């Protein structure tokens, strides 16, 4: 199991008041994402546990793009990966941030 950690300062704090959300499942080609509103200001932290090695650059690109487009300030995001494709990871992140924005 490989672990990766990314820290970002987003453009702003993510809207909404929800404290935690979880989306997805740990299954082959899928992933589980836990989102917690625990960080100050626009800080954002992403921890990834993946069984597949050699995709560090792709993970970095996915997280960069997500932070740039969805400004998830204040969130600690933990990803439990089951070997999902980057497009699936991105969809789950979009879904997770949409959940956190809901009342």
């Amino acid at each position, binding site marked *: 199991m490989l672990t990766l950690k990314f820290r970002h300062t987003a453009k702003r704090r993510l809207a909404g008041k929800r404290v935690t959300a979880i989306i997805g499942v740990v299954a082959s080609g899928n992933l589980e994402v836990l989102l917690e509103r625990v960080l100050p200001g626009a800080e954002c932290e992403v921890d990834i546990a993946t069984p597949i090695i050699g995709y560090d650059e792709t993970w970095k690109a996915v997280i960069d*793009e997500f932070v740039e487009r969805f400004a998830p300030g204040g969130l600690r995001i933990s990803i439990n990966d089951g070997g999902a494709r980057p497009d699936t990871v991105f*969809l789950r992140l*979009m879904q997770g941030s949409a959940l956190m924005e809901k009342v």
Partner: protein
Amino acid sequence: MIDWQSERRSREERLRAGSKFADGKMVAADAATALLEAVTRPGDRICLEGDNQKQADFLAACLANANPKVLHDLHVVQSGIVLPEHIDLFEKGIAKKLDYSYSGPQSYAVPRALNSGTIELGAIHTYVELFARYFVDLTPHVALTVARSADREGNLYMGPNTEDSPTVIEATAFKEGIVVAQVNEVVDKLPRVDIPGDRVDFVVAAPKPFYVEPLFTRDPASITETQILAAMMAIKGIYAEYGIKRLNHGIGYNTAAIELLLPTYADKLGLKGKIATHWALNPHPTLIPAIESGWVKQIHSFGSEVGMDAYMRARSDVYFTGRDGSMSSNRMYCQIAGLYATDLFIGSTLQIDLNGNSSTVTRDRIAGFGGAPNMGSDAHGRRHGSEPWLKAGREAVDGDPRLMRGRKLVVQIVETFSEKTIPAFVEKLDAVDLADKFKLPIAPVMIYGDDVTHIVSEEGIANLLLCRTAAEREQAIRAIAGFTDVGRARDRKMVEKLRERKIVLRPEDLGIDPLDAQRSMLAARSIEDLMHWSGNLYDPPNKFRNW
């Protein structure tokens, strides 16, 4: 003296030779190979009917059993190279030259045979293009067709699988050719006559019913959430935006997802009656929920689909059914309908380059074209206006609107990565290397970039109509190429500008809630669900039954 009737005399000789193996028009199954040897001449153009759906499989096997000393150097002119026997003809030397359209199951065998010189290739066509050549320079001398039943006069009943037959037989029969039909049974009275008996010379009752491939059945269980997201964008960003009522869908899970989102997601958007009402489409089982929910007014089909007969018979307001109640298809008519009378084609592909050219060719595999290049092209002969066509035309060109051509919407919908994490977006199509390898005069491009108006991926929509320079086009494509190498090499600043001009649209730009991208949004989530939607009229083939 000029001989004006040599073809007629040749036909009479062939008929005399063939009649030795026939009782009237009826030929016993075990005499079929001898019949084909008698009525065919070396070097003849021959069409063994078989497209992507029905197959004259018994006659193909009989021809492949012919003696290559008697029958050799045939020129095969047919839409599908699908059965192993089609390849056998070339390996045995019975056939030499090939002009065709589609080679799905034989897509690896065809390039191997080209490489070894076993097949001499004329060209790979789109269906309607090959049919056109049947009437100009590739008229068959012999056509081997296939029907559900015949009577003793040779009248043929094809039912929903009419497909290519009327076209092939018209060209052959009226140019002094020989028409041989394989049928499942000979009966006293046909439900309806699809081909008049005076165009049919010989009829063989085959030992087994002819084979039909269930090519258009997509199991909803295999549709992913990223496909659902892309389908939602297509519905909201293209179908609703342009008001698409008349359309064609290709085969694939992406378009199946759109079909299954009509009664759910599109209904929630209030689009019922405003989009997707009139179709040129094979009988896709995944459209059943939309039909049952009252979305669909009318469908004309290229061919049939296994298991759909009873459903289509019961939904005669929607399908084209004969006086006998069974559906009729016609590939030539439906291709023309898709070319001239629809405002949108949407289909999947395997590779798209930076200019928007797309191809289903990968290394060592030539699947041919089928109908997609015809559906997926702008008809320059079109003259009737419609809102979607005019709007697309206005987006494409700056100039005097009175002199502006409309544009058919030609949409490619892909996932940025395939199931095996192979990127759909590439700098250079494999088709280009393949053309070099097999010395083809042009690369087998499925849809040329200048015909493509939109590309949809799970990352967004690229509207190529609104691009004014090659650089804008390239960045619009990179902008939706996700995390592929092509996507990651995008110019972020330029992409943001394209987004402002609505050339690039993201789910968030379209107001799409990513939480809607769930399988529970599909109107049917399994083949069994489709069967239930149809009131058990849809009878799925066994390979799709897992309950």
